[in-house]
């Protein structure tokens, strides 16, 4: 059994000009684990994902994937291993490309053959009917687009999936379907997830462990069980929990 964590981050610092967005962040995610990062706007949680994925190259610290330390610019092999699902289903698919084009593109970039079969399989796995294959994004609903985004992330068969608020732009009933899909896929393919969200209930449902971030720092790391028992150690985490319970009059 490998003891190397799938993802290890040590003293990560990210700044955009004068603003120091991520400060001395360290955490590790084991292989096959689902790890949540929770925070409000300005906490730096989405920036962490962008740095992990290689989209953002202005950072200092150490990032290791499966034991291998990562440079700022990643190579193609990295992208076969690590993929991302974005928040906004209305912005993450190219408006002028059909579902087929979108799924074929990563295969073409990596020179992977039998695209026909792989595309068909990817669509079936995310529950999209085959008849949707040549639709354009504007002919799909938000939930359907997000399924395409998930299929696109999985068509290269990565082992790590970075999920940036994948359901916050979706209706509650669609969110349930997509979350169930993500759970099933993780089990089936033994994937490692990092799920970023502002919604504590979603994170508690999807993740085993989670990190609470505030103003760029990791405030508290806890298990989902601690969260469900409403037993956090820091005041900020308690504040988030109380706020998630809804409005209290008086």
């Amino acid at each position, binding site marked *: 059994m490998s003891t190397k964590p799938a993802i290890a981050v040590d003293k990560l610092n990210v700044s955009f000009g004068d603003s120091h967005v991520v400060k001395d962040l360290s955490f590790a995610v084991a292989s096959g684990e689902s790890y949540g990062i929770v925070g*409000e*706007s300005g906490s730096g949680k989405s920036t962490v994902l962008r740095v992990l994925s290689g989209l953002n190259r202005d950072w200092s610290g150490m990032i290791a994937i499966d034991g291998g330390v990562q440079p700022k610019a990643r190579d193609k092999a990295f992208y076969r291993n690590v993929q991302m699902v974005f928040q906004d289903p209305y912005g993450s698919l190219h408006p002028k490309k059909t579902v087929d084009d979108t799924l074929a593109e990563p295969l073409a970039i990596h020179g992977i053959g039998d695209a026909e079969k792989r595309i068909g399989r990817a669509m079936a796995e995310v529950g999209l009917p085959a008849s949707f294959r040549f639709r354009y994004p504007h002919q799909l609903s938000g939930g359907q687009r997000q399924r395409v985004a998930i299929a696109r992330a999985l068509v290269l068969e990565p082992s790590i999936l970075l999920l940036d608020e994948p359901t916050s732009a979706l209706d509650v009933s669609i969110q*349930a379907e997509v*979350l169930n899909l993500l759970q099933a896929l993780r089990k089936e393919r033994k994937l490692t997830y990092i799920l970023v969200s502002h*919604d504590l209930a979603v994170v*508690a449902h999807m993740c085993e462990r989670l990190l609470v971030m505030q103003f760029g720092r990791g405030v508290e790391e806890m298990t*989902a069980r601690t969260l469900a028992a409403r037993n956090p150690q820091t005041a900020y985490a308690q504040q988030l929990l109380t*706020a998630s319970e809804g409005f209290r009059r008086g």
Partner: protein
Amino acid sequence: MEQPLLELDNLRVDFHTPTGIVHAVRGLSFTLGRERLGIVGESGSGKSMTGRAILDLIPHPGVVTADRLRFRGQDLTTMDKGARRKLRGRHISMVMQDPKFSLNPVQTVGHQIAEAYRIHHKAGAREARERSLAMLEQVQIREPGRVYDLYPHEVSGGMGQRVMIAMMLIAEPEILIADEPTSALDVTVQLQILKILDDLVTQRGMGLIFISHDLHLVQSFCDRVIVMYGGKAMETLPAAELADEAARARRHPYTLGLLGCLPDLDHPRAELATLKRDPAWLA
């Protein structure tokens, strides 16, 4: 028994597009008194359209019809455009989702609040400014003088929404329609804004229509709730009953479905229940 603030009977909003008629709202009926009424639904349920129809803000090619649409006994359907416009802001007002998009970026926030006052009351610049500053205090903004001169991009989301509320309440309307007023805000800020709204509505004895997709929030904030789907009301019920386990048997299957598919910190499940849409609900 006091006259209701708003009476709505069989409201219909139809959009006549080149490719066919889209029925956004189909036959919605309710009355609003001095209470907090929540309208809950997913996207496409018609909840936002309802708010806009009351204010006569439905764009072409939308058509609004109703058997009865009365504000304090006055018939809104037979009113002319000018009279309808006078109601807007002065008697019925609306707060929308994102202050980034509803505040004019090239005017200071204070100026916009003062202007909102002067549209409805004859007042000089100084009086309008005084009233605006007073209003900013009422929405818990600590340095009203400083904030008055800020531009919308210089204030945070929560403060921007407070400015919106100040702007929309300064003319002292009887009804406030809030369309997803806290959806763009962080959770901790949301509750602050709701408290401000709650206090103002109670103090002034207003009627509040709170439109949201967040069932949880509406259940904890409102007095009564209308659950909408596909342009129709599935059911209308007291908000407390939504959380009441004992009352579940009386719930409409759509409401139960919505409640069931939410992840719940206190009741962890391996898989979330999904909503089975029954076409009979749209009939």
